[in-house]
């Protein structure tokens, strides 16, 4: 696989990649000290400005193709000729190159099937690209997904451990954080009840708290804005802000454009596996909306309505 070949070529990496040990790196450390302020509200991206010039993730020329299962009309002959009539591969990522900086909230927008989730899997290192490479500066990124590794027949307590162990924590580390997680999830005594008795809100609150147990430098988030009720949503947004303030990096995928433009510093718009535009959040989202054939003013109002609705519908 050429990903391995690229990795072994140091000259390739050197070009255009700022050295993280350069002065910018020190600046980041300085900022980390005064990062202990807790933002209680969704600060706008312009006010935050935690992004540094240091790269956190550099993705180069990523390509991923899938060969889908195609359901055909079952014929007797077809049973034996399946191999010959191969389905056309679906291109999920087509020569995607991105550079994401430390402390940045980076959004990815695009229609369904544009390749957003595939991109996150490649960045997380679970899906090897067919070609291209990903360089990570810092600890290996973690793709945040809710309820991963949970067993619904077990109690909340055991699932805290299962989820934590699944994301690579040790049991002793989970012991230390356990009380915090339960408090954060606001589950109370229900922690000893089987998870399948939880309401969906309780479930996602616990799942979010468990997922946040391990705080990697680079967090990859797939569609996560609608967890829990409004109070919990404010709390989770605050946690995300906190991560950014600690010079962590967040890469997120969402269809909630209104929230994306508020939260993200930069956004990439992907269509059919190709990067169409990367840049300042509001600008890219607007371009994406124009492309999708929605009048942007109308779309924004509509999106805000949805966001409002989401706040109160639980």
């Amino acid at each position, binding site marked *: 696989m050429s*990903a391995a070949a690229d990795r072994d070529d140091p000259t390739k990496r050197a070009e255009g990649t700022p050295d993280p040990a350069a002065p910018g790196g020190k600046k980041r450390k300085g900022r980390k000290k005064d990062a202990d302020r807790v933002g209680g509200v969704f600060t706008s991206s312009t006010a935050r400005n935690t992004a540094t010039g240091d790269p956190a993730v*550099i993705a180069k020329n990523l390509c991923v193709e899938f060969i889908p299962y195609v359901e055909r009309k079952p014929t007797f002959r077809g049973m034996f000729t399946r191999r010959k009539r191969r389905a056309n591969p679906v291109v999920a990522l087509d020569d995607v190159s991105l550079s994401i900086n430390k402390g940045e909230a980076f959004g990815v927008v695009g229609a369904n099937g544009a390749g957003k989730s595939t991109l996150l899997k490649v960045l997380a290192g679970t899906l090897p690209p067919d070609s291209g*490479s990903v360089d990570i500066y810092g600890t290996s990124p973690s793709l945040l997904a809710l309820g*991963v590794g949970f067993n619904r*027949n077990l109690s909340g307590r*055991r699932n805290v451990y*299962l989820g934590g*162990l699944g994301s690579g924590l040790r*049991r002793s580390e989970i012991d230390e954080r356990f009380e915090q997680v339960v408090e954060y999830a606001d589950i109370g005594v229900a922690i000893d009840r089987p998870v399948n008795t939880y309401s969906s809100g309780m479930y996602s609150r616990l799942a979010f708290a468990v997922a946040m147990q391990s705080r990697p430098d680079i967090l990859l988030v797939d569609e996560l804005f609608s967890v829990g009720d409004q109070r919990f949503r404010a709390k989770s947004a605050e946690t995300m802000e906190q991560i950014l303030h600690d010079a962590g990096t967040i890469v997120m995928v969402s269809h909630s454009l209104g929230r994306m433009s508020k939260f993200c510093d930069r956004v990439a718009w992907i269509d059919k596996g190709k990067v169409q535009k990367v840049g300042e959040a509001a600008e890219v989202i607007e371009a994406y909306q124009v492309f999708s054939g929605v009048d942007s003013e109308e779309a924004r109002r509509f999106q805000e309505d949805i966001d409002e609705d989401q706040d109160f519908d639980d």
Partner: protein
Amino acid sequence: MSSAPLTISLRPSTSEYLKDLWSRREFAWYMALGNIRAQNSNTYLGLVWWVLSPLLLGMVFLLVFGVILDSRRGDPDYIGFLLSGLFAFYYTRGSVLAGAVSIQQNTKLVSTKRFPRMILPIASIIEAAISFLFSLIPFFVIAGFVGGDWPTPLIWVAIPAFVFQTLFNIGMTSLISLLAIPFRDLTNLTPLLTRVWLYTSPVIFPLDERLKNVSETLFNIFSLNPMASILGLWRTALLGRPLQTRDMVGAAVWGIGIALVGFFVFMRNEHRLVKYL
């Protein structure tokens, strides 16, 4: 933080992989215990089922093969013979059946988290091993009462028997769990194949007695069955039957051989899995 970037590497070296696997041992263990607990969480008898299931299974086999079909053939300790073979066979059967779906049942985990995927089949084996140890309780209760002279002086053979069988299970289960992702058909086939395997292994009757009249070539083919050697060792350990060198060598070769093949094939191919999920 070092200045060198961490490039996502999907081809770890063997020692890295083993180290990574070892550092995740708590996860495998916790997952196996969780599955065990979850299986009986809604039943009234709860954990009692772990003793009751093998007991009932043994009684069914005794009724059908011991009484109705009269496979005893004058063996005074047929109950011990059948139960030891059955429970030991079910250890491998349980590993393989749970392992075949172990990756499919954790697609979300596999596609979002990085960890040595072999944790998943290993958790299935731990689960089956615990279930096997539980089944030894009814074995000792029944066979001990009926057969009498237990423990035998050859009980130490239980250690190589367990080790070689577990190694064999690790290899088999890893291979099947890996192959069942691109070839989902395997998930449908494994229950059938394990059943055929049960009837061609010396579980219900001893091979040498039943195959007296077949040609030597066919007999040798049947003796090649890894379960023949493994069950032979268990019968030495649990029933005090004479220890056969053939069994010890066969179990060792099969156990270590399949474990190595399974481990390397799995490790070298696990990065392909997510594409098929």
